């Protein structure tokens, strides 16, 4: 019984001691976090900046632009990253501030869809016209059209090709 009470006493002391340590540890940990906030690397910042453009330096991606303004934007990206923002949140922040032109591609919405749709449609139309043209050309057999080729236009090549054929 005595042993039991001694055990209880030791247990309680340990608990109190651990709690005391825990209470002490909380501000220490918080202080440690204040002293060493998450610092994103240049590469992490550039990975986001690479896909953005500032409105002033036209057509120069943000990660490689040498102007002071762009350096400040990169610093801002670093700041947001250190605050735990995601890449999408950071991009959206800049879009809200400066418009969609900061993105390297138009967002897929509204009239912007045209930029993505027109080239493939134009290509397919071109391919269709070409295919149709080729087919219609083939359907009309040439009356007596000889095959005009290199051989006819260049005697030398004709002889060369003949010899090549013989040698095979």
């Amino acid at each position: 019984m005595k042993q039991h009470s001694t055990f209880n006493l030791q247990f309680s002391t340990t608990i109190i001691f651990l709690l005391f340590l825990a209470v002490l540890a909380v501000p220490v940990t918080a202080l440690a976090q204040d002293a060493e906030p998450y610092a994103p690397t240049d590469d992490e910042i550039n990975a986001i900046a690479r896909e953005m453009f500032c409105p002033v330096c036209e057509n120069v991606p943000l990660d490689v632009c040498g102007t002071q303004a762009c350096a400040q934007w990169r610093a801002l990206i670093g700041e947001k990253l250190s605050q735990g923002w995601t890449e999408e949140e950071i991009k959206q922040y800049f879009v809200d501030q400066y418009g969609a032109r900061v993105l390297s591609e138009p967002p897929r919405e509204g009239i912007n869809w045209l930029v993505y749709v027109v080239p493939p449609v134009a290509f397919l139309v071109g391919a269709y016209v070409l295919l149709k043209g080729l087919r219609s050309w083939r359907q009309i057999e040439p009356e007596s059209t000889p095959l005009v080729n290199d051989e006819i236009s260049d005697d030398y090549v004709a002889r060369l090709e003949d010899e090549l054929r013989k040698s095979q």
Partner: protein
Amino acid sequence: MIANLGYGALVLTLIVSFYGIGAALVGLRKNKPALVDSARNAMLLTFPLLTLSALSIIYLLATNHFEVEYVASVTSRSMPMYLKVTALWGGQSGSLVFWSWLMSAFASAVTLRKWDRDREFLPWVIVVSLITLAFFLALNLFVENPFTRLWALPSGQVIEAMLRPAGGSLYFPSDGRGLNPLLRHPGMIIHPPMLYLGFVSFVIPYAFAMAALITGRTDDRWIRLTRRWTLWAWMFLTLGLVLGGRWAYDVLGWGGYWGWDPVEIAAFMPWLTGTAFLHSVMIQEKRGMLKQWNMVLIILTYALVIFGTFLTRSGVLSSVHAFAQSAIGPLFFAFIGITFIVSISLLMQRWNALKAQNQMTSMLSREALFLLNNLLFLGILVVCFWGVIFPLISELFTGQKVTVGPPFYERANGPLMAGLLLLMAVAPLAAWGRSTYQTLGRAIWKPTVAAAVVLVAVIISGVTNIYAMIGIFLASLVIAVTIHQYWRGIMARRKRDGSNFLAAFTKLMQRDPRRYGGYLVHISMAMLAIGIVGIEMFQTETQGTLSQGESLELGRYTMVYDELAVFNTNDARNVARAVVSVYKDGKPVGELYPRRDFFYDSQQPMTIPGVRSTFADDFYVLLVDWEEISSNSATFKIYHNPLVKWMWVGSWVFIIGTLISAWPEKEKETAPKRSQHRVAAAAD
């Protein structure tokens, strides 16, 4: 005095141009050969007059005449003489004079050739060339005058004007603002003239095409006459693009060579239609087909040449509103519109006379494959054109500007470019008229095996990117097919006359320079493709701030920051130059000296990378920032760019190939008689 002389020469050139146009038209209409000859002389006179005007600008630039606004805007006392001279094309108005001078030189050269033989075309060529020239001269005289001077008014205000304003006196700034530092690079000195040469020389085949349409001479004579002009134009334009890429790589400090910038695309678009045209005209020459299409292509190329100049000169790229505010933009727009409509109207008039003489007989024929090649080139053109103008459309309709950047172009153009590589491998093996799968298969299986071996080696080396594998395989296939073609030709030649390998190769080139020069161009394009695959798909980078002695690692490379010096130079630069040691797999491979130059006159910096270049890869170091006082720590950005050297070497192969292809041959023929088609056209 000199400014007045140069300006007077410009005015005279414009008057002479209008006279030439009128004399040619009246002479043709009233059948007065003396007037047509006079028009030719007018064309020839434009060249010395424009030379005088260009020399006047050069004199003003070289002698620091800062009272001339153009001189003050592009030069400064500290600039070396060669940069002052080349500042002729460093600004808008000077570059327009340069454009006109080149145009005049080329058009004059055309009229100096066999005048009597091509008398049917040449008067119309003069008219078209002089109209184009007159447009650019008018821009110079009325909108972008390089001889405008600075005048101080009694009120103290300084204004720009050609003639002395009331009470005004010439204003002499103590120094100029200097050339944009980015333009102070050998690549940038040669790059604009090359592009301009390409642009201007494409006007010549266009002028002949218009002459053919106007005269009703719808056979392939105009194509035969301009084949070499077209090749030269194409070579200059390609060189201009490659030099621009090299300049970007060396000066812009972003580790790349091509950023899908609208200005780059402006020069790329006429190249696309020009390349399609180069292939398509062969079909007309060999098979008498695609006459209408060739006309469309050369009209498009001409329109895109002017459109490219318009894009870069009008300010439209920064904003549609800038376009509306500038005087030069609407003028360009009107000129493009009018010339395009007139050209298409002429084409429509001759549409029936331009019908094909032959029919397409096989989907596997060379002409069918060339048509596919045209489709792919035009597909890339649509992507580029749409990507460039879409921000303007968006701004116009929604008021919001968007950026169409590299990801869009790379995604859309990548498959089309791969298709072009495939065609480059297959089309040279297909016969004109008809081919079969069997004959094609027989011709291509050996090169395919060789390309497959390369692919296996690439996979074994650790490459897992499927797009890279496709790109490398296709580029290898092009090279293997082309080498195989050479090999077959050389072997046949040796068997025939017992000559040695080198002699057989030389004879092969001499006997059919167009074909075998063209093959070299194909090899160069495959080399460019290898470089593009390397840098686009395998480029890696990292950035870090280092103290002296610290290192930064990237892949197998380690870079150690040794020291940094900051000093002033005699030509008004403040230079920060770092010394870094580079190690590969732990072994020293050399030192690099990345630096940042700050130009006091223009208050602009320029970043010059330190580059170690091999066929395997480039190690590319940029000095991003440093501690101003102690120079103890500095920030570096390093890139690992695999295979990029293949691009630069490929461009040399390209030059050799094009020169061989365009090498003048002794003309076998005299001018053929007007064909029946022309008679038919005249009867229309």
